[in-house]
């Protein structure tokens, strides 16, 4: 039986192989970061590198010479002539917008080529005279409107025969922009990091610029002209996305493909601005917490499916302070149109119920007063794709933490809504950590249910908008006690115009018993109506009848109200595009609201004891 073992092995192997051939659950790749072979990073704001500074100098020199467009150099005689005729044409000069800074829209010549016969074969074509004389096509790119302009120039008559504008096209870029893109990518710390931190031995540029093709890259959100230089060193393949409108690196994607031969498959996966951004944000901020420890503070943060950027497990100097804080919803209503508005959730860019999503990762920045670092701000911006266009929105969610123990959750709208009658109402949910918390409300007068000063709030209830504050600006105090000992206490100071970008919070406040299922400890997809103008913003649903005691823990809901304004010089909750340094930038007029929690000395907290039950 000389063949038994081998045949048995063959049979068993085949059996194993066949059983192992059970199909994958999916016919095509999910293309999400959790399972892909790529690593990605986004690039935040960074100073211009040498190549960008040099290019900006080139653009400035051209503007200083009074040129309407950055011309191409080293052209043939006829191409140079065509370029000069096109750039001198009155139509171009009339239509190039000039910004308030006196700088015209950034235009660059991309190419000058002899006209093809197909361009004038139509007998009705304005270019039909090119059949009998030499014509050149001059392609320019208008970076302010993200469109290509094409002029057809008859060299014999020295006239421009036609102009054509093309939006949504990815043009071929000239050598100087190709070189710039490669240099920007090459010199970036992110590309170096992708290469393992060592300087590249050599870069082979596989794709310096991309055209409209299946492998073309796009900056879908900014609508800027972007290209994707690709580098290979050893077994590492790197794609960088370079924004040629803002002259910045958007992000980097890389993979260790193992062998050069395998690269052809992965080449098809050239990232776009959106795919790169979504992949990074989903993997790093939507699927797990990030720990942040700074200036005595310790917390976790992550993006939720519909409750914005949530912080949790917040401690200050080792003492637990907050279970979580999040932004449940934005209510936007338009007063001149009955019932017209939106309830927008903010959250993860994909697999979420967010209507307004992040394009960038959360940012952390120092808070500086009198030149000194006094704290830090954790901030997330959410945007609609068309912002700052009409009926598109941008929201900022921020958490300020100070080294003296103050903290402030806040929410800001940066417009740009559907009109000048919009009111924004963000729903902030603040859950203090643990039990033993007592809330007191300030009353400036004696009433049947309260004395002058701070009065205990023992049961669930809501508080009318824009309530009175004491001399220190506090509307409430919140203190935690254990066995008769005050552990910590805070004054809750609403915005009354003292904070930056604020005209006051005009806040509704709600106190509810904590941790009931479905009351916000988990995701709250949509809470309340967009368009109620009174206290019925949603959290009132969690006030039971009869009202529950707050003794076992409470949740504070803070719903400020910000009315937008479009009056020139007084814009508020608004944004519009302006031409700045040759390209369109959003001019931002945020309106921000949120309560400052100011720590009270423990003895002061103890003295603010309840004087009367409401």
């Amino acid at each position, binding site marked *: *039986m*000389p*063949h038994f073992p081998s*045949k048995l092995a*063959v*049979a068993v192997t*085949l*059996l194993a192989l*066949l*059983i192992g*051939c*059970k*199909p*994958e*659950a*999916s*016919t*095509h*790749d*999910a*293309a*999400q*970061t959790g*399972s892909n*072979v790529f690593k990605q990073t986004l690039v935040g704001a960074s100073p211009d590198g040498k190549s960008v500074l040099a290019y900006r100098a080139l653009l400035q020199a051209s503007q200083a010479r009074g040129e309407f467009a950055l011309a191409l150099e080293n052209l043939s005689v006829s191409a140079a002539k065509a370029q000069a005729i096109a750039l001198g044409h009155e139509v171009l000069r009339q239509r190039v917008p000039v910004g308030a800074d006196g700088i015209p829209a950034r235009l660059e010549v991309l190419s000058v080529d002899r006209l093809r016969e197909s361009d004038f074969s139509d007998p009705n074509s304005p270019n039909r005279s090119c059949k009998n004389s030499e014509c050149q096509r001059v392609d320019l790119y208008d970076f302010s409107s993200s469109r290509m302009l094409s002029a057809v120039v008859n060299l014999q008559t020295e006239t421009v025969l036609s102009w054509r504008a093309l*939006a949504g096209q990815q043009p071929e870029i000239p050598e100087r922009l190709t070189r710039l893109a490669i240099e920007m990518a090459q010199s970036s710390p992110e590309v170096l990091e992708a290469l393992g931190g060592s300087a590249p031995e050599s870069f082979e540029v596989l794709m310096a610029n991309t055209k*409209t093709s*299946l*492998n073309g890259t*796009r900056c*879908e959100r900014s609508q800027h002209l972007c290209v994707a230089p690709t580098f290979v060193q050893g077994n590492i393949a790197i794609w960088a996305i370079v924004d040629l409108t803002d002259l910045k690196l958007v992000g980097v994607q890389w993979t260790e493909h193992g062998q050069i031969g395998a690269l052809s*498959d*992965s*080449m098809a996966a050239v990232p*776009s601005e959106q795919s790169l951004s*979504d992949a990074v944000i*989903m993997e790093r901020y939507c699927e797990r917490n990030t720990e942040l420890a700074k200036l005595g503070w310790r917390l976790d943060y992550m993006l939720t*499916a519909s409750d914005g950027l949530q912080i949790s497990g917040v401690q200050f100097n080792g003492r637990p302070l907050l279970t979580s804080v999040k932004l449940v*919803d934005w209510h936007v209503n338009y007063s001149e149109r009955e019932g*017209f508005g939106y*309830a*927008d*959730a903010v959250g*993860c*860019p*994909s*697999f*979420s*119920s*967010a*209507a*307004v999503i992040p394009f960038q990762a959360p940012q952390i920045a120092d808070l500086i007063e009198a030149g000194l670092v006094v704290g830090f701000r954790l901030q997330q911006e959410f945007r*609609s*794709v*068309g912002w700052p*266009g009409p009926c*598109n929105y941008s929201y900022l969610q921020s958490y300020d933490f100070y080294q003296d123990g103050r903290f402030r959750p806040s929410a800001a709208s940066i417009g740009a809504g559907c009109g000048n009658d919009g009111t924004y109402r963000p729903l902030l949910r603040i859950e203090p950590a643990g039990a033993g918390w007592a809330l007191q409300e300030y009353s400036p007068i004696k009433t049947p249910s309260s004395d002058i000063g701070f009065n205990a709030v023992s049961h669930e209830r809501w508080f009318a908008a824009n309530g009175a504050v004491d001399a220190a600006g506090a509307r409430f105090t919140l203190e935690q006690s254990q066995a008769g000992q005050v552990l910590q206490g805070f004054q809750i100071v609403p915005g009354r115009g003292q904070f930056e970008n604020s005209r006051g919070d005009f806040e509704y406040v709600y106190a509810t018993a904590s941790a009931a299922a479905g009351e916000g400890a988990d995701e709250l*997809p*949509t809470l309340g*109506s967009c368009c109620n103008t009174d206290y019925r913003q949603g959290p009132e649903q969690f006030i039971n009848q009869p009202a529950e005691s707050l003794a076992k823990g409470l949740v504070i809901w803070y719903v400020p109200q910000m009315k937008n304004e479009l009056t020139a010089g007084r814009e508020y909750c608004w944004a519009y595009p302006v031409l700045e340094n040759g390209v369109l930038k959003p001019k931002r007029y945020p309106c921000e609201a949120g309560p400052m929690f100011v720590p009270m000395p423990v003895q002061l907290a103890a003295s603010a004891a309840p004087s009367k039950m409401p």
Partner: protein
Amino acid sequence: MSKKKNRQNSGTAKPVNPETVLAAAPLQAGSKRSKALWGIALALVLLAALAAGMAAWQSTGVKSAPVFSLESALSARNSCRRPPTFFNGKGFGRGVSLSTAERDLIGIAAVEFDPKTKQRSHYWQHPSWSKFGQFSAFTLDRQGDVYVIPAPRVNLADNPPALQNRLYRIDASTGELQLVLKFPVAAPASARNPYAGMGLSYDCNTHSLWLSSVAGSEPARERGKILKIQLEPTVSVVDQLDDIDGFGIAVFSAGSQLQAGVSAASQQGLLIASARQGSVLLQAIGEDGRLQGRPVAMLSIAGIGPLGNDRVRKIDIGRSGELLLHGTSFNFNLAQPSAQHAGVKYRFAWDSATRRYQFVEWLQ
């Protein structure tokens, strides 16, 4: 991408004919008798293995995967659809249509637009049309009944995730909208994936619907379904394809002309647009009207159009077989496409030389 390719390769390796395997199994050198004995033993082992493998495939909804390439331009199978009569007497002209995209209305509405101003001049809703939240895809059948599926727009206030795996029917004559089916899902819609039904296509030949759903899908796992829903005698699911996130869907015939309104095609299948990518897939339907194998890639709009990353939400097959793909931004969230880039259509035409659909142009 290599991962995707590998998966497809493993898919095409699956439909092995037992006879082919047996014939192809190499025999080692040895006596004729021992060869025969080992051959029988090996055949038994292989048959057992195949039985186990087939059972495993059946459990995931995969039956077989014949290579499916088109022989001709496609023909639509929904030309028998008729308009409903509930419009009558409501003051509409010839321009009346149904819409689920009116910003100021919930649900579905009959609308008419002023051709000069392009503004809506007239609308009507049966009281039942706005009771179940926002709707997305809808289709008519040969009797004028309207079938429609819900989908959230901007927020979940009107479309609770638990109520999204629903198919509703509007009676052609009364206009009354009623729930007719709660379709199966891998997992209920949720805040992390609030969608269920995505696309609908009516098949005149079988008086049935094809529905695509993404309910239960996760970032790294497609758990959506393609469902065949018979409409008579009861509305029920009669066939399904699992683990695929489809968006726009269209049933087609190919290979021959329609005869007296009924296709005598040699090929029939589904076009299924991916909800995750810009691709459109080709899915075979057997002579018995059931799904055959897994879908294969057919064409893509990736990189085309003003944004370059649209998904195909609706597929129209024209009379000459050309395809008009209706694009939209979709990323498994509630972000709305910007007005500037909404409503892009992509036209593909059949190229008989290459036997493939070729991109012609995008329109806005």
